[in-house]
């Protein structure tokens, strides 16, 4: 299960693509160039990246309000993403969806979701289709700690367990749901304690460690592919920015010290330190990867800025599929 060098490079690339994309989006949001809500994924990159590197391309993903990270990790086109976040015509959803509904069905990323808990049942449906077809494709549901308190999560997880569907449940436990700490809204120490109630294996993993996430995901995916049903992974992680927007410090619901403590465990820094110290990837290579990705992000921003607003004539299209 030791990840290959190629896998390590891949993990690094994906984390960095998320980070740099998100930082750029945050700056645009601050500069009022991005309408609506913006739920940044920064801090949690190791989770989406670790899982998506472990996945096959045909494996599906359902996501949440904090969905950019999952789409980037699944290979999303940064230009189309940036354009979508700006509400532009060339965005993934032609400006109709925005941050909370961004998706790429060709990449099997079945969409971010504005409703907490709304995405999990959809992953279960995709898992059902995979089993139905008898292929060994797996679907992955990403969701937050807070979302495990809502009914749709419970129904979806139990459904997948009861029907033994090939689904991987990945809980990104960042210890908060908006402005409410987890201990106020659940009386358990670890979210993974819920897995036993569905009769599925559960595992805790360090969500700041992409390699650990990758390995746990590989196991869960293999179990699902083998027909042994769902697995629940709890990744302990943290979001650096506020629930929404780019404020980081000075908030009532969490201390600045807590934020700083978590930042010391930054998934990208830790990863870079590890691979360079182990002599697996050189600092030069890491820097050049970063530069490449920054260029890609800059181009995405430019693409988004240059893309026009959607034409009013599209307002009422895409409501229904026309039947022949």
């Amino acid at each position, binding site marked *: 299960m030791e990840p290959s060098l190629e896998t390590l490079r891949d993990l690094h690339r994906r984390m960095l693509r998320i980070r740099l994309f998100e930082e750029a989006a945050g700056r645009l949001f601050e500069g009022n160039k991005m309408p609506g809500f913006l739920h940044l994924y920064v801090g949690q990159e190791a989770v989406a990246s670790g899982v998506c590197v472990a996945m096959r391309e045909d494996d599906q993903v359902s996501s949440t309000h904090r969905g950019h990270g999952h789409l980037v990790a699944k290979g999303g086109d940064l230009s189309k993403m940036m354009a979508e976040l700006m509400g532009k015509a060339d965005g993934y959803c032609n400006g109709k969806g925005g941050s909370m509904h961004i998706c790429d069905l060709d990449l099997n990323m079945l969409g971010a979701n504005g409703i907490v808990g709304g995405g999990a*049942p959809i992953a279960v449906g995709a898992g059902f289709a995979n089993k139905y077809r008898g292929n060994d494709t797996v679907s992955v549901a990403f969701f937050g700690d807070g979302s495990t308190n809502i009914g749709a999560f419970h129904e979806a997880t139990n459904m997948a367990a009861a029907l033994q569907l090939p689904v991987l449940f990945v809980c990104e436990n960042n210890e908060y749901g908006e402005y409410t700490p987890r201990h106020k809204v659940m009386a358990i120490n670890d979210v993974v304690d819920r897995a036993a109630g569905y009769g599925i294996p559960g595992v805790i993993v360090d969500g700041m460690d992409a390699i650990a996430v990758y390995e746990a995901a590989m196991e869960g995916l293999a179990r699902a592919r083998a027909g042994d049903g769902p697995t629940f992974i709890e990744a302990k992680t943290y979001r650096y920015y506020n629930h929404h927007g780019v404020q980081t410090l000075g908030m009532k619901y969490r201390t600045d010290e807590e934020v700083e403590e978590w930042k010391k465990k930054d998934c990208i820094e830790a990863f870079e330190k590890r691979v360079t110290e182990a002599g697996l990837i050189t600092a030069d290579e890491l820097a050049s990867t970063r530069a490449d990705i920054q260029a890609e992000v800059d181009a995405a921003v430019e693409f988004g800025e240059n893309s026009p607003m959607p034409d009013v004539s599209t307002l009422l299209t895409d409501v229904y599929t026309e*039947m022949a």
Partner: protein
Amino acid sequence: MSATETAPAGTAAADPGERELTYLGAFNEAMFQLMRQDEDIFVAGEDVGVQGGVFGSFKGLAEEFGDRRCVDTPIAEQAIVGLGIGAAVAGLRPVVDLMFMDFVMVAMDQIANQAAKLKYMFGGKAELPLTITTNGGAGLSAAAQHSQSLEAMLCHVPGLKVVMPSSPYDLKGLMVACVRDNNPTIIVKNKRMFGSTGPVPEELYEIPLGVANVVREGADITVVAYGRMVEESAKAAKRLSEEQGIECEIVDPRTVQPLDTETIVASAKKTNRIVVVHEAVRFGGLGAEIAAQVQEEAFDYLDAPVGRIAAPFSPIPFSPGLEGHYVPNAKRISAGILETLGRPVPGA
């Protein structure tokens, strides 16, 4: 292999013919024929497998198609609809069942916030060939949480199609259309019609969604009715014709979303008077929308306000002693028609 590709040519409304089936039998036959034709169709819901559905809608399917294609699920309406959405996005053609229409409320988020909006939110990139089947209507002393007609809520949600068949023939043909449609559709059987019989062709035929049916022609007044109210309206029309020489034109929209406004308005322009009949609560019901549209489109043709005959503003009572006065019936429909015609209403 999609159902649409394999549909036999000329699936538009076949000749009803001689053979009779019950309302439930027509539905069941549609399921069998659709599932035989298209491997991508499956059904999932509570008790749909071994039991064949609590009302028998899915009887025999598990025996023929096995538990792979006829799936008993946990009691989890949100996940049942979600299962359908995910499977549809992944390319299957799911039929998911909600035992009672009242349970639409339990799954409302998945229906109205997810299924209905997915395609639009995704900039048109998703196809959602999902069919939700359910059972609505009052009259069985099933009380406030097992008797509702909630189509008005669903019609208000862009992205859904809502179908309310009024006969075995329509039920089969419309069910076929729902399953073949690439949009989320909800088809509502009426619980009091399960045993009603009528002619149903043996072959697989499709009745297009969004096309009203003029059930009865008449020059004096238009009666728009759907679901079980068509049969009650027909009774009222027959009596009014026989006893008072009043000729009603009954228009059954069959699908209430999309609504065939054109046919309704054309009839109203012809008769100059129109009433709408439904089982749902009057306030905010579909009758309001139809009244609003008709007065918009045919203002100068109307000799009287558009009438509405519907359930009053209360939850549905359990006792037959009360429920009998809650649901519109032929008598109340007659009274409403006479009122709109400006004629004396007996006993009023």
